[in-house]
């Protein structure tokens, strides 16, 4: 059977892959077949019947030869009934008619039925103007209604704070119910009653208990589900729509911002573009709200005489440049450190480190401000395949086996989580989730395997999985030197049994997980900040590289390991050399030949010694060795691992420059504060977790007084005597594309909205297989393990500046296993004090059996709870003591 078939739609013959649905084939033939219940992410349903078409096959005569009519054309035997295009696959030689009298009557009939009980309230419906039913009624419906009887009515409901339901408008396409099930894995919606009384609601008609993503609203083709926060704010034709890249997580979803005047009124997916299409998580949908916060900085601030006072931009630039010059002159450039930047656009990241390296001459540059240990700048590159063609998000959802290491993807990258759920439902994907907590993906309803490792045994687990993978031998197709290295690694690692004791997972389970991973044709290993911000990060990332090669997830040709970074452009920060030991494109500064293009372009001899990493900068600043800090888009006071030390560091520094949108706790301690523009107010490129470059458009002009970070860097660089003359981010990108290995050949024009993944023809780093051993460090001590991680509704210091997200997130809670709580005498809702080596925090407790006994879980995104007050983690994590307290909650 041929892989493609010929099909004729309304007289146009096209060739499509076998198994294509008629609706898709018709789109290919540029014939419009309307759909309601069909959706690209959902299996065919065939319920709404609007896509009915007439289908026929050539009539066969004697000898199975086609019969031709008088005019020589083959006669078609049309099926007696019309067929639904969304459920019927094409066959070779099939003829489809959408314009015949039969098809037109059938479609008009269905259209009329759809409008039987649909109210004529388009003028007051938020969907009006972008409603598919409205559009199709115009296109295919009659110009009057024969329905003169009473319509059945329902009472409208608020399904929680996000979703407004007007069931009268519902056409029961079941998209919302199925999307919630297939994509979100939440099963929050269902249909009540039957027949004409069918009504979509939550199961108990209470507010939806779900991720509040609002995708049900997005997929609703009519106005049955609308967004409460956007209720009656505007009509669709009022809005200018701009496609930006979501500033929250590394999935890099395209967000279509709807702007009326200077106000962003809503965010939606992009329907047919972007990695996410229609999907947005709750942060993507409501996280833009900080842009119009009244608390935004409206001018640069300068510390003059002890307090911060508004200043002109030029004044602030002149002051900052002069102070930087003085400190560099007095203490050498190594006394200056640049921190943060993984929330910036790619161009700004490049300029940030160019300012540090090329203008000031310091290599103390690090974007990974939360890190608790030094991680080589190319470690993640090597673990994810060194620039080899890598897994796309689409391939991820089609993998046979996906191993999720350490991260709770619900908090870190909700879209990645949804793709895995989709894959599990539709593509036979099997999940293995290694996490101490029973995170969403580890729930039994997703049919995966939960490797519930003991906290602190992360490294042992990855090594044990590697050992189990290598029991079957070295995978075929790895380069010879890798094969040899793996063979010797196998003997060094020992048997999975040793790992089983330490992790608490049986050796059989480990072997089975490794076997599944090795056996799958398309596999995926996903890891993220849980490991890269781990005290044993360097060993863990090395262990993941070992596992990648040992399981066949890394091969000479391809890489199926995905790094889900902490911020939306963390990958860009690594690529652009916001690490102390690598230049853009992971160029080793010690490599004279590779370094030369940068020296020529920048007109400076580069400092060859590796700079200090973020935790080292923190230490050096606290000890007074680093005198000046420039912190960009980072609430470092709250994100640095040790609160006492960061307070001391900021106090001792002679100059602290902060770029931010708000007067954050860090900005309050600065000498110069630059008011920065938000993601919606500037143009630029972000690199997502699949290493895809995407351009984000400028939706609104920057707030008065605020400037894009890139402009700030350029102004200071000029103040320091550099001759930068970038007029637009495009100028910067051109320079990046010229200099940076892996980015060569990319052009600005191809990046909107969905650019390519960058790859390197030759791997940017050789494979390194080495035993991954944690540095002999201080023991973590005793007490409960402090587990922290992302949470769905909040991420980073921007997310709690809006109205919706903090409301949805509620207050910070310490989560304890009921048994553990009972041992400690703690009940649900009690106030507890969590004490670590550095200090304590007080908050309310919640009992949660998803958290293992022997540990306490507090998400780190809450504003009122600064976990770094507990002190820096040691050994394999942070141990704390938890006790019930009568004290009132203490704020930050």
């Amino acid at each position: 059977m041929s892989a493609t078939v010929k099909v004729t739609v309304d007289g146009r013959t096209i060739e499509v892959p076998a198994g294509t649905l008629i609706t898709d084939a018709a789109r290919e033939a540029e014939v419009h077949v309307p759909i309601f219940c069909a959706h690209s992410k959902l299996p065919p349903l065939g319920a709404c019947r609007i896509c009915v078409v007439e289908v026929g096959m050539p009539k066969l005569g004697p000898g199975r030869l086609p019969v031709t009519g008088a005019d020589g054309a083959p006669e078609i035997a049309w099926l007696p009934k019309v067929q639904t295009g969304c459920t019927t696959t094409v066959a070779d030689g099939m003829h489809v008619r959408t314009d015949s009298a039969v098809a037109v009557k059938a479609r008009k009939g269905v259209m009329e039925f759809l409008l039987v009980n649909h109210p004529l309230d388009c003028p007051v419906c938020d969907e009006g103007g972008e409603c598919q039913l409205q559009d199709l009624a115009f296109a295919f419906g009659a110009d009057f209604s024969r329905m003169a009887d009473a319509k059945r009515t329902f009472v409208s409901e608020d399904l929680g704070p996000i979703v407004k339901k007007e069931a009268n408008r519902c056409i029961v396409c079941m998209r919302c119910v199925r999307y919630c099930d297939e994509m979100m894995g939440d099963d929050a919606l269902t249909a009540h009653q039957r027949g004409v009384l069918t009504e979509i609601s939550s199961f108990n008609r209470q507010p939806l208990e779900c991720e509040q993503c609002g995708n049900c609203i997005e997929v609703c083709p009519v106005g049955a589900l609308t967004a409460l926060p956007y209720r009656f704010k505007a009509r669709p034709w009022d809005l200018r729509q701009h496609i930006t890249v979501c500033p929250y997580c590394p999935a890099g979803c395209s967000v279509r911002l709807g702007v009326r005047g200077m106000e962003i009124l809503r965010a939606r997916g992009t329907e047919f573009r972007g990695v996410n299409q229609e999907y947005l998580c709750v942060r993507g949908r409501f996280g833009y709200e900080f842009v119009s916060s009244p608390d935004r900085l409206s001018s640069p601030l300068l510390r003059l005489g002890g307090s911060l006072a508004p200043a002109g931009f030029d004044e602030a630039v002149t002051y900052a440049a002069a102070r930087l010059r003085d400190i560099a002159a007095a203490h050498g450039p190594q006394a200056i450190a640049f921190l943060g930047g993984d929330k910036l656009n790619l161009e700004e990241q490049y300029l940030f480190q160019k300012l540090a390296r090329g203008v000031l001459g310091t290599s103390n540059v690090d974007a990974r401000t939360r890190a608790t240990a030094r991680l080589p700048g190319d470690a993640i590159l090597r673990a994810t395949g060194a620039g080899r063609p890598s897994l796309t998000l689409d391939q991820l959802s089609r993998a046979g086996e996906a191993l999720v290491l350490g991260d709770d993807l619900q908090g870190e990258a909700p879209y990645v989580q949804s793709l895995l759920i989709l894959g599990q439902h539709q593509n036979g994907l099997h999940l293995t989730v290694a996490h101490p907590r029973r995170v969403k993906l580890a729930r039994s309803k997703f049919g995966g395997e939960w490797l519930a490792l003991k906290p602190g045994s992360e490294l042992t687990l990855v090594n044990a999985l590697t050992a189990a993978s290598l029991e079957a031998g070295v995978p075929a197709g790895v380069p010879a030197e890798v094969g040899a290295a793996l063979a010797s690694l196998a003997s060094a690692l020992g048997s999975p049994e040793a790992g089983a004791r330490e992790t608490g997972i049986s050796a059989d389970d480990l072997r089975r997980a490794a076997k599944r991973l090795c056996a799958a044709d398309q596999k995926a290993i996903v890891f993220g900040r849980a490991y890269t911000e781990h005290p044993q990060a360097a060993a863990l990332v090395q262990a993941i590289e070992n596992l990648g090669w040992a399981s066949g997830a890394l091969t000479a040709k391809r890489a199926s390991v995905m790094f889900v970074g902490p911020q939306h452009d963390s990958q860009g920060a690594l690529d652009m050399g916001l690490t102390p030991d690598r230049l853009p494109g992971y160029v080793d500064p010690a490599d004279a030949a590779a370094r030369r293009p940068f020296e020529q372009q920048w007109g400076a001899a580069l400092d060859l010694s590796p700079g200090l990493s973020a935790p080292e900068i923190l230490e050096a600043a606290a000890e007074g060795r680093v005198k000046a800090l420039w912190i960009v888009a980072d609430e470092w006071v709250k994100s640095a691992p040790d609160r006492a030390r960061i307070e001391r560091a900021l106090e001792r520094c002679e100059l602290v420059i902060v770029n931010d949108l708000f007067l954050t706790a860090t900005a309050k301690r600065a000498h110069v504060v630059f008011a920065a523009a938000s993601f919606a107010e500037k143009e630029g490129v972000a690199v997502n977790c699949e290493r895809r470059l995407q351009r984000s458009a400028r939706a609104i002009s920057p707030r008065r007084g605020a400037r894009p970070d890139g402009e700030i860097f350029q102004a200071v660089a000029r103040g320091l005597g550099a001759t930068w003359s970038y007029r637009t981010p495009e100028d910067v990108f051109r320079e990046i594309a010229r200099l940076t290995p892996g980015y060569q050949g990319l052009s600005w024009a191809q990046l909107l909205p969905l650019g390519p993944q960058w790859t390197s023809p030759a791997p940017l780093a050789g494979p390194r297989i080495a035993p991954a051993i944690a540095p002999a460090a201080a023991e973590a001590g005793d007490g409960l393990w402090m587990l922290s991680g992302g949470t769905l509704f909040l991420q980073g210091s921007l997310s709690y500046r809006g109205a919706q997200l903090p409301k949805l997130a509620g207050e910070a809670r310490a989560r304890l296993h009921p048994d553990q709580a009972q041992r400690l005498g703690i009940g649900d809702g009690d106030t507890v004090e969590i004490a670590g080596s550095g200090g304590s925090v007080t908050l309310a407790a919640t009992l949660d059996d998803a958290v293992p006994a022997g540990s306490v879980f507090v998400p780190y995104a809450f504003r009122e709870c600064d976990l770094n007050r507990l002190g820096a983690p040691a050994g394999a994590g942070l141990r704390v003591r938890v006790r019930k307290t009568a004290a009132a909650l203490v704020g930050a």
Partner: protein
Amino acid sequence: MLKELGQGLGVTLGNLFKKPFTVQYPEEKLEMFPRFRGLHILTRHEDGLERCVGCELCAVACPADAIFVKAAENDPQRPNTHGERYAERYEINMLRCIFCGMCEEACPEDAIYLEKNYELSDYDRDAFIYTKDELLVGPEKSGYLPQR
């Protein structure tokens, strides 16, 4: 020749004794034709609630882009309209308006009408942006709809 002159003067003479067409504006004002399109009004239902639901169809129909509407949700305790939605802001820029009546055509609620008031002059440009307060008829005209 004299004959024609006589005829001409005859017409003049005849008109001299007719009632004049000219009116003494502003002391005297002309009654406009039934379908004259002057200043807009926003109408009310019989019960005094506003007819306009803030659907913005007038704004999108307006060829001069003279209308701005911002809708909001009714307070169920003190509703402005019969439904859930009402126009929180309703503004017409009379400097842009071309009095074509498309807004009236587009309105699904019989809420906007072009009435016969043609006295639209002022000293200040801002004054030509008519707000909802100026456009909405008083409660005493509840239920009033102009005859067309």
